[in-house]
């Protein structure tokens, strides 16, 4: 529980930091959702707190870059296409965010897994 609170504090600080950089509000929203969500699914697992914090910080950077790129893409597209396409992009954005979050989380698990590989991971497979 303590590590979760610590994670939430770090996450909040990151959101505040990005807010000070005047990033678009939709990117801030994505960062906020990512931090709350990631702390909830990652910090309760056993593992060193330092590693958890490092992974959280890396996730914030990826989240920022991904959503900034998407935001710029949407701006560029909306200059040429109608609002319907923007609505479609808004609809797709959470799904695309989900894909990188799942990938990032699954790789993040590797850093926490207690080194007791069994079966396949024991051998040279």
């Amino acid at each position, binding site marked *: 529980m303590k590590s979760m609170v610590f994670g939430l504090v770090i996450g909040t600080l990151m959101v505040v930091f990005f807010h000070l950089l005047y990033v678009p509000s939709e990117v801030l929203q994505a960062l906020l*959702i990512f931090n709350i969500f990631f702390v909830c699914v990652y910090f309760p697992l056993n593992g060193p707190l330092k590693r958890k914090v490092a992974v959280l910080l890396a996730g914030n950077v990826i989240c920022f870059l991904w959503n900034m790129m998407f935001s710029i893409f949407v701006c560029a597209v909306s200059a040429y296409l109608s609002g319907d396409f923007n609505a479609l992009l808004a609809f797709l954005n959470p799904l695309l965010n989900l894909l990188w979050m799942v990938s990032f989380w699954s790789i993040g698990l590797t850093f926490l897994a207690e080194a007791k*590989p*069994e*079966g396949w991971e024991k051998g040279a497979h």
Partner: protein
Amino acid sequence: MLIEFLEALFLLSTMVMAAYLIRHYLFTIAVLKFGKKWKTASNHGNASYQPTVSILIPARNEEHVIGRLLQRMTELTYPKDKLQVIVIDDASRDGTGKIAEQYSEKYSYVKVIHRGEHEGGRGKASALNAGLKHALGEIVLCFDADYYPQKDIVEKLVKEFADPTVWAVQGRVVVLNEPQNVVTRLVALERTGGYRVDQEARDRLGLITQFGGTVGGFRRQLLEKLGGWDEQMLAEDTDLTFRIYLAGYKVKYVLDAECYEEAVDSWQAYWRQRYRWAKGHMQCAFKHALNLLKSDKLTLIQKIDGLLLLNVYFMPILVFTSWIVSIPLFVLKFCRWLSPFWVAASISMYSAVGNFAPFYEVGVGAYLDGRTRAQWLIPLLAFTFLYNVPICTKAFLDLLFSKLIGKNSNHWDKTAHFGNGNCYIAIFQKR
């Protein structure tokens, strides 16, 4: 009118999907939070309880794998004077019967039943019923021919029967040929989520623990009371699970009783297997859903869990339908009941947080197993989900069509096994 109908359909399907996602989260959090406590609190049955046991092995054209399973049967640590192994050679056209006969001649507790073309080949349930007639043991266990159990699996499964309230048990299935290719690796991940988290949580939370058709067993008395396996059902295991619960009995899950299976190794084989499972599950849903709701032997929570379990193969269809419906409703802004803000907020929450649930379950399963690399493939499970959409849709349409024309189309499309797991046996041999 059409828009209102589509909105209602979308809201309903979203609520059902949300129920499944919440269930994934609850199961995973429960296993994470209470897993260790459950393990230490478990009484692990009574190890000195050793009743007579009959093991049924239905086998049809399994010459590549039957030998290794029968060899393993001879290596089991359970007292052989209390063991009976029955191989049901179900009209095999290859050397399955011959291999089984060789073991039968050498070991007195191995018995082979040969079924000819006129009576065999009607599916697993039919073969198991044939074997049941010859079973003498107090406990009846079942293993598929492509499985490879732990040496002490019989003890691990049987000791649970020392508790008189336990009438059926289910062990854990682990993929034997996991490193073979990406299909087997993804199947292994699905199995990890299903058996390390899902089944464990269901059992410990007092919900509906599913009998998986293999690596499990029953008191013979129960099977006889229920009339054995229903030969009309494609998912005879799910059908039996619900018949057990509806009769007021329960299935106990034994996490540490592991058995290693040869998983399907191509997308075509995956399609055929899942199509059979989907159609069989849907058959069971039609057969048991009402009885489940009316049952006075189950609690409300069990009924809800049972309904979710019965209808699990409708999920890919439901998700696909809701995607189709949501495009005209929200993207083209036809929505009338909901404001755009709530629509956007709910889509964001649902897509990003809700859809994470099944990945979370599998990831935590792999984490609890101490896997360090397997979870890297978790994102690819999205592909298997998409692949399940046409599989389940076809299964549903075929079932509906056969019901409409009143024709029974329960063709048992058996999964072929080529012994691809044989080269990995060495890793599990000492277990």
